[in-house]
């Protein structure tokens, strides 16, 4: 492949991913409202378009036409920068997540991932940690006590849960012996899904992912009843939309990472035994990946509308005294498995 071809292929992938991402974020918001309505015996948005399917666009246009207010006491530069950090982090994490096995299109061998880098998982961890800056800057630069409290809570929460998240991932890395998402998926061949092999690690990772994405029951940085709007109290118009978008994009990233690391990515157990056509297999596998992601996303929504928010001290308690030892225990468990069964 020449350099030009590589660039063109990468650009096509990037455009596809961004467009798909924006659409799925829009419809995540729609489904969030729908699921909450179903759980509360309501109907949810059903007026704009067919079954309310155009509601997300109506919401976006409403936000765009709002006045952009910056408080007098705010640090203008950081106040403007913060939503962009949040968005940048949310979108660039997608680059390393493989949605399917390598395919051959028009004679080119294409990996179904924007950047198949060999330190993919490190990239995900680094970027999710950077995401804290978006929220903390937003909280600090707004010059409002509610925002500041939200920002502080966010940083404390993210740092504590990052630890158990990292240790949970270590278990996965021990088994796959690679930081490359593609290899991690391939290591989970058949039923050797990491969720099956190391259930403790799976639970700690999912809980940490909830905390990292600031979703209920860990949405303390926003905590409407206590902090008005948390870190985005002083944001309006498109900057607010930026945070809103980033939150949902982060959710989708988190689900994709969970699927990649623990639910076998695009693998369908024993599909190669069926003797199907190669193209059909690839399509089925991409479908499987999307289905698994959709299920985890639904799980995110389902949890949000079922479980009340943790108190701040309970959150810290859970993070340091429960999740952290559990993730360490998981590493020991994986190490024992490797020692005994030589996985």
């Amino acid at each position: 492949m020449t350099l030009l071809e590589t660039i063109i292929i990468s650009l096509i992938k990037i455009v596809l991913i961004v467009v798909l991402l924006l659409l799925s974020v829009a419809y995540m918001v729609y489904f969030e409202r729908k699921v909450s309505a179903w759980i509360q015996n309501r109907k949810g948005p059903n007026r704009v378009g067919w079954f309310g399917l155009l509601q997300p666009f109506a919401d976006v246009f409403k936000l765009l036409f709002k006045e952009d207010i910056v408080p007098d006491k705010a640090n203008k530069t950081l106040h403007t920068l913060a939503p962009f950090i949040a968005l940048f982090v949310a979108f660039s994490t997608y680059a390393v997540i493989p949605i399917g096995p390598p395919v051959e299109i028009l004679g080119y061998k294409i990996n179904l991932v924007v950047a198949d880098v060999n330190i993919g998982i490190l990239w995900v961890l680094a970027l999710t940690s950077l995401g804290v800056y978006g929220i903390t800057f937003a909280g600090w630069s707004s010059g409002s006590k509610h925002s500041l409290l939200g920002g502080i809570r966010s940083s404390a929460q993210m740092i504590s849960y990052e630890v158990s998240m990292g240790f949970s991932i270590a278990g996965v890395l021990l088994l796959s012996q690679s930081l490359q998402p593609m290899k991690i998926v391939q290591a989970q061949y058949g039923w050797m899904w990491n969720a099956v092999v190391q259930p403790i690690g799976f639970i700690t990772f999912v809980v940490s992912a909830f905390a990292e994405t600031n979703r209920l029951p860990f949405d303390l940085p926003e905590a409407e009843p206590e902090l008005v709007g948390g870190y985005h109290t002083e944001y309006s118009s498109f900057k607010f939309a930026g945070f809103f978008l980033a939150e949902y994009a982060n959710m989708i990233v988190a689900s994709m990472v969970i699927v990649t690391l623990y639910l076998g990515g695009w693998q369908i157990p024993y599909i190669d035994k069926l003797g199907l056509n190669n193209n059909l297999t690839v399509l089925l596998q991409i479908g499987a990946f999307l289905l698994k992601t959709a299920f985890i996303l639904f799980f995110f929504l389902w949890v949000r509308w079922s479980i009340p928010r943790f108190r701040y001290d309970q959150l810290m308690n859970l993070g340091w005294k429960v999740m952290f030892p559990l993730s360490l225990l998981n590493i020991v468990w994986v190490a024992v498995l490797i020692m005994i069964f030589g996985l």
Partner: protein
Amino acid sequence: MTEKKRIKNLSLMERIYIPEIAKGMWLTLKTMFKPSVTLQYPEVKFEPTGSYRGRPVLVKDQNEVERCVACGLCARVCPALAIEVQASETELEKERYPQKFEINMLRCIFCGLCEEVCPEEAIVMSKDYELVFSNRDDAIFGKDKLLVPVENLKERLDFLRKFKG
């Protein structure tokens, strides 16, 4: 700092969270498949029962005359000072009638005290809850809007007789 002893400490099963969370999630999952209770408002309207306190109206008897004798008790009791009554004389048996009876619907708080205090059962709360005005003058309802035939208020009158004695 001494640790506060709770009246009922959580059992082990409750403390490991997961079973309790699963229970809660199962409940919400079941709820998700139940039919919704939403009424599609402008198309489908909520039909209140007799106990509903909508806008207060004056009862118009079969002889096309209001029951009100303009005693002014309702105006006196109204906590929001929404009612204004001006009495006048009439040839009829009741001798007095309200020449002017106005309720300012922007002030009315739908407490139903006027209905409770009325000795003639002449002012009652209706089922009407759609109250929209485009200016403040429209919000002052005169006799033309307040008089409602007694047949339309039967349910409320029955309710009052049953529960107010």
